[in-house]
């Protein structure tokens, strides 16, 4: 099992963000995490990396309980993040942003050159400051950086946010799709349900602080009332 959450709950002070979230994601799966704005998707993603509020429950990453580990150890265990807002370092160049991911991680299939081959647009701009990139290029850089950690599990948080529809489609369905075909496990926390479900055959829906749906995307798409009530689609 790549990732297992068991009765995971998160609180900011007395405010409960979500509770009793249990799920399992197998190696090579593509899973969409859906929910309205403010449903707790980002908090759940942060919780996976121990970057958010205090937690109770267990998070197992490749069999190891990691919920109390510092973030860098969780990352080394095999989970990479493409954060909301991209989380690029504006005072660093494109290639410095990428090389940062290679410093403390084991060598693996991904190299700087392979990233530039996969995303040629980044190669052209390797010496530019990351703040000079276009929205699409920034997202590719964030993905490239996450890949360079060699982690088998890629978590993307609001990857389509701020992108033109065509660009979001290209990045999520084509690029991430290709990576998943090559064996990467993908957890896609996404506001744009229609887009996420085109990539992911399995969906999770977070609503009212609970996981209200966990099943095949087709079943979710067939359930009009659930879509309407929790996703507003």
């Amino acid at each position, binding site marked *: 099992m790549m990732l297992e959450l068991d009765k995971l709950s998160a609180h900011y002070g007395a405010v409960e963000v979500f509770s009793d979230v249990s799920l399992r994601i197998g190696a090579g799966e593509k899973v969409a995490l859906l929910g309205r704005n403010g449903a707790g998707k980002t908090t759940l993603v942060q919780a996976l*990396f121990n970057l958010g509020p205090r937690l109770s429950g267990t998070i197992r990453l490749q069999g190891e309980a990691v919920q109390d580990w*510092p973030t*860098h150890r969780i*990352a080394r265990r095999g989970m990479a993040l493409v954060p909301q807002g991209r989380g690029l*370092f*504006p005072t*660093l160049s494109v290639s*410095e942003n990428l090389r*940062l991911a290679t410093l*403390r991680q084991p060598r693996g299939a991904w190299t700087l050159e392979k990233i530039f081959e996969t995303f040629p647009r980044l190669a052209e701009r390797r010496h530019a400051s990351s703040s000079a990139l276009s929205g699409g290029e920034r997202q590719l850089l964030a993905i490239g950086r996450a890949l360079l950690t060699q982690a088998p599990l890629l978590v993307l948080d609001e990857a389509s946010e701020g992108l033109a529809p065509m660009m979001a489609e290209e990045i999520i369905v084509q690029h991430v799709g290709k990576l998943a075909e090559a064996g990467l496990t993908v957890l896609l926390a996404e506001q744009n349900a229609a887009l996420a479900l085109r990539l992911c055959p399995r969906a999770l829906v977070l609503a009212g602080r609970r996981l209200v749906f966990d099943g095949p995307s087709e079943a979710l798409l067939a359930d009009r009332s659930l879509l309407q009530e929790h996703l507003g689609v």
Partner: protein
Amino acid sequence: MMGYAAIQVLNALSFSALLLLTGLGLSVVLSLMNFVNLAHGSFYLLGSYIAVHWLASGAPWWMAFPVAFLATALAGALLERFPLRAFYARPHLMQVLLTYGLSVIFADLMRWGFGAQILSPELPEMLQGVVFLFDMPFPLYRLFIIGAGFAMALALWLLFDRTMWGAVVRAAVSDRGIVETLGIDTRRLFAAVFMLSAGLGGLSGALGAGMLAAYPGLDEEVLILALITVVVGGLGSFGGTVLSALVVGFALTFSKVWFPEFANLAAFSAMIALLLARPNGLVAPPLRQL
């Protein structure tokens, strides 16, 4: 007249070089770790005392500077482990109380260990004496401070701007959490940066001993000037700290020349005016505001 002005410019430059090294140490801890270290002046004074004793010992004189750097860096490393690390996430006021308290303890310890008199180092022969500029004498040692201080600042700039280690530090300034998701242990990074900061304080003290001597109370004097340098420059901006070290160095030196009775009043009023005009400092940092 020409010669007198040139001498004062060099005096200001040597003072600025000291402020720059001390200020950079303080600045990097403040901007990276969001930590206010009011014990930074203690590192400076410790470095001065180490240099005075080293230069009197007969050991190779030039080693006084690396020794002062390493010894204060080591002191910084111990202090970082306990108790400073536990205060990184605390509000600034708590950090201020803790580090001010520590600086008082260190002042007492140093007075007990090194005495209360003013100690001037015995300068090595090759740095003694004066050079003549426009027929005016200028101490050779101050030229050494200018050269060593600005060379060290250049080395630091290269470290932060041109190395991968520097890139990690710059990345952690903008988002520590994301740096962690790349597998990098930022707690160790912070400890290393704090050691560097303490070492820089000690190194500037060792360099400065030949100009300002070493005595109880100098730690607080240096601290306030370093704080002003950092704040006037704009937090977290390397270029801003260089610029403001020059501004503060020249302001204090020339106000002593022009208004000797009101030197501090003139210099500090100029700084208050500057901060009112540019609240974010001379060079506003491109990233987060502290």
